[in-house]
C-alpha cells in the first residue's frame, strides 16, 4: 500500500453519501433547530435564534419527569443486568451439562421484537387476568395494578427491560470468560483459593474492559428507551391520563409528532445527546485514572 490514490473514496461513496444525507446533515440541522424559536418544518421559518426552546424544555414538568424517569431506568436496569449476567455467564462457563442449550435459551430475547414481546409482557402484567398477579395471589399476596397503577409503571418497565437486556450482557461476558487464559486459574487451583476469591481476584479484573463495555452500551441504549414504553403501555407513557413512565425519547417523539413543537423536540434531542456523552465520559473516568496511576508507577 504505497500508492495513495482517491480510489478509496469510490468504494466509500455509497456509505458516505447516505451518511451525509441521513446522519451528518440532520445532526447539524437538529442542533440549529434547537435554537430556533417557533421553527416550522414546512417552510423552515422561525421567529428568532435564542435559547427559548431550552427554557421551555426545562420549564415543562413532563420533560423533567422524563429525565428523572430515564435516569431511574438507567440506574436500575444497567447495574441489575450487568450483575445478574456476570453470575449467569460464570455459571454457564463452569463445566455444566446442556451448556449449548442454556446459551441458546438465554440469548433468545436479544433477537425478538421489543414490540411483540412487550405486548406479551403487557398480558403477563395484566391487573385482572395476568400471570404475574395470579402467581402473587397463589402465594397469598394482593394483586398489583402493574400497568394501571401509576406507582408501579416504572417497576413494570424495569422488569421488562432487565429481562430484555440480560441476553446481550450474558453473551458478551461468556465470550470474554472463554477468552481468559486457563493458566490464571490453574495457579489459583494449586493454592486452593476459594471460588468467590478467584472470582473477585482473577475473573473480575480480567473482565474489567468487557464489563466497562457492557456498562457503556447499557447506558447508551437505556437512555434511548422508547419501544419498551410504547409496547408496554399500548402507545402511551403510562396508565391513561398519566405520564408516569414517560422517557426522554418518548417526550421528544410526542413533541415532534403529536404537538408539532419541532424546536423543543430538537432541543430535547440535543439534551439527550449531551447526557449520553456525559455518562459515557464518567464511566470511562475510573479506567483513565487507573491507567494514569499505573503509568506513574512504571
Amino acid at each position: 500500500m504505497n500508492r495513495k490514490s482517491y480510489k478509496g473514496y469510490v468504494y466509500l461513496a455509497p456509505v458516505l453519501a447516505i451518511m451525509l444525507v441521513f446522519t451528518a446533515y440532520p445532526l447539524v440541522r437538529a442542533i440549529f433547530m434547537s435554537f430556533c424559536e417557533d421553527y416550522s418544518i414546512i417552510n423552515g421559518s422561525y421567529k428568532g435564534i435564542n435559547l427559548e426552546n431550552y427554557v421551555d424544555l426545562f420549564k415543562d414538568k413532563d420533560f423533567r419527569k422524563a429525565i428523572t424517569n430515564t435516569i431511574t431506568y438507567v440506574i436500575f436496569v444497567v447495574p441489575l443486568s450487568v450483575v445478574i449476567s456476570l453470575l449467569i455467564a460464570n455459571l454457564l462457563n463452569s463445566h455444566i451439562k446442556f451448556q449449548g442449550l442454556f446459551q441458546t435459551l438465554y440469548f433468545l430475547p436479544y433477537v425478538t421484537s421489543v414490540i411483540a414481546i412487550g405486548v406479551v409482557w403487557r398480558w403477563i402484567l395484566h391487573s385482572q387476568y395476568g400471570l404475574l398477579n395470579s402467581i402473587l395471589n397463589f402465594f397469598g399476596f394482593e394483586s398489583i395494578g402493574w400497568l394501571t397503577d401509576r406507582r408501579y409503571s416504572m417497576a413494570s418497565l424495569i422488569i421488562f427491560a432487565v429481562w430484555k437486556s440480560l441476553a446481550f450482557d450474558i453473551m458478551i461476558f461468556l465470550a470474554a470468560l472463554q477468552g481468559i487464559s486457563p493458566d490464571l486459574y490453574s495457579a489459583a487451583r494449586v493454592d486452593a483459593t476459594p471460588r468467590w476469591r478467584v472470582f473477585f481476584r482473577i475473573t473480575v479484573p480480567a473482565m474489567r474492559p468487557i464489563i466497562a463495555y457492557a456498562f457503556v452500551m447499557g447506558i447508551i441504549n437505556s437512555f434511548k428507551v422508547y419501544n419498551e414504553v410504547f409496547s408496554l403501555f399500548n402507545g402511551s407513557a403510562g396508565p391513561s391520563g398519566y405520564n408516569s413512565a414517560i422517557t426522554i425519547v418518548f417526550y421528544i417523539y410526542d413533541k415532534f409528532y403529536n404537538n408539532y413543537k419541532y424546536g423543543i423536540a430538537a432541543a430535547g434531542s440535543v439534551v439527550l445527546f449531551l447526557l449520553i456523552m456525559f455518562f459515557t465520559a464518567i464511566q470511562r473516568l475510573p479506567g483513565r485514572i487507573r491507567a494514569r496511576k499505573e503509568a506513574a508507577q512504571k
Partner: protein
Amino acid sequence: MKSRKPTAIIAEIVKYVILVAGALFTLLPFVWMILSSLKSGSEIVSIPPTIIPTHFMFSNYAEAWQAAPFPRYFLNTVFVATVTTVGVLLTSILAAFAFARLDFPGKKIVFSLFMATLMIPGEMLLITNFVTVTKLKWVDTYKAMIVPWLANVFYTYLLSQFFSSVPEALYLAAKVDKCSDLKFLFKIMVPMNKNAITTVAILSFIGSWNSFLWPLLVTNSTNMRVLSHGLVRFQSEAGAQYQLIMAASCILVVPIVIIYLFLRKYILEGMAYTGVKG
C-alpha cells in the same frame, strides 16, 4: 478424581437451580405467548388462568391472520428486511474494503469521523430525516423505509476488521496477476469472509424485521405497514381478545426465532467478536 465433599455437591445443585430459574424467567414470555395463543376466548380470561389450554385452538392463528391484513404486513416486512440487508451488505463490503486495504488521502480523519457517528443517538436525526423523506416525496413508499438504512457504521467496521486480517500477500499476489481491486474483493475477499458476512446479513435482517419507530413514522396507508406496526394497531382493534393478540405476536416473533435457532452460530460468533474486541 477425588471424592466429592457435600459442600461441593450443594454448590453444584445451587448452580443448576440458578441456571434453570434464569432460563425459565427468560423463556416465560415465549411460552406464555404460545400457550395463550391457543386458548379459547373464554378460557383466556379465566381466573386463575389455566396453564395448558383445555382445547388447543389452532384456529386462533387463522382468525388473527385474517382479522387484519397480516399477509400484507408480512410481505412488506420480508421485502423491506431483504432489500435493506442486500443493500447494506453491498455498501458495507465496499466501504470495509476501502478502510481495510486501500490507502487514500484523509483516510484517518474519515475513519475517525465515521466511528464518531456511533455516539449520535438515531432519535436526534429523526425529525430532519422525516422532513427529508417528506421533501423527497418518499412518504408511504418502500424507499423511505429502506434507503436511510443502507449505510451502517457498525457493520462496516466489523467487516473491515475481518478484511484486515486477510494476509496482505494475497492482495499483492492478486495485484501482480493484474487482478482488479473490485475483482479481488468479490472473488477472494468476500468468499474468504463468508462467515462474517453471513453474521452481518443475519443481524441486519433481524434489525430490520424488528424495527418499529421509523416505519411507523414514514408510512400512512395500511398497505405499507410492517408487522410490528400492524401488531400495535391490531392490539387496539382486537380489544380484550388476548388469544388473538398473542397469536399475532407469534407471527412477528416466530420467524426470527426460527432463523435464530438455525443460524445462531453466526449470531453468537458476531456478538462474541464485537463484545471482546469492541
